């Protein structure tokens, strides 16, 4: 299955791109995707725990299983206002 990843703010700077598609094994969870990215991006590996995640523009739990076509984003600490 294929998911669409979005990056924002400091995460965008760390990865060097705004978005990308990823082919994942069926049954991959949000947490498993974060662990995969952490092996590629040194900044992500330095985090003590998984940051908040969104699937299809809603906050999602780490255990959430991803589906083909999902839009996924890991979110740096928000700073609106």
């Amino acid at each position, binding site marked *: 299955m294929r998911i669409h990843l979005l990056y924002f*703010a400091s995460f965008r700077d760390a990865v060097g791109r705004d978005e990308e598609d990823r082919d994942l094994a069926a049954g991959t969870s949000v947490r498993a995707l974060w662990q995969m990215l952490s092996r590629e991006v040194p900044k992500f590996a330095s985090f003590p725990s998984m940051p908040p995640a*969104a699937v299809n523009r*809603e*906050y999602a739990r780490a255990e959430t299983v991803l589906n083909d076509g999902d839009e996924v984003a890991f979110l*740096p600490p*928000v*700073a*609106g*206002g």
Partner: protein
Amino acid sequence: MYLTSSPIDVAKMLLEARASDGALCLFLGVVRNENEGRATVSIEYQAYGAMAESEMELVADGLRRDFPTALVSMRHRVGPLAVGEVSVAIVAIAPHRAEAFAACRAGIDRIKTTVPIWKREFHPDGTSDWVDPTKESEDRVIG
């Protein structure tokens, strides 16, 4: 739409009062010239646009539930802003001041907690930083 890349029309937001309303509370967030002791010359707000809109709607839903007599409108700027510009505006209108103050305060507090918007501060030396409220001192987080 809650997010805008144009200056927020605050005056327009003040015109929604009903005949039964006796109190209007306005909060404006304004771009400051420093943060944590470092000078700021300008800032940039970046948003996860579609999710930020839906999270703002969830904030609005929560305010309607928690402050049923209040009418609340909210706007947030995105893109580049200069020092002194309005970054966020909350207007809470209610029959009495207690609900207006409480709904206005809750509105800005909840926006800061859940809406996926990020702030980059540009410094006089040309460097910039993404603001991380989780790493700032307590008094700044509350402000």
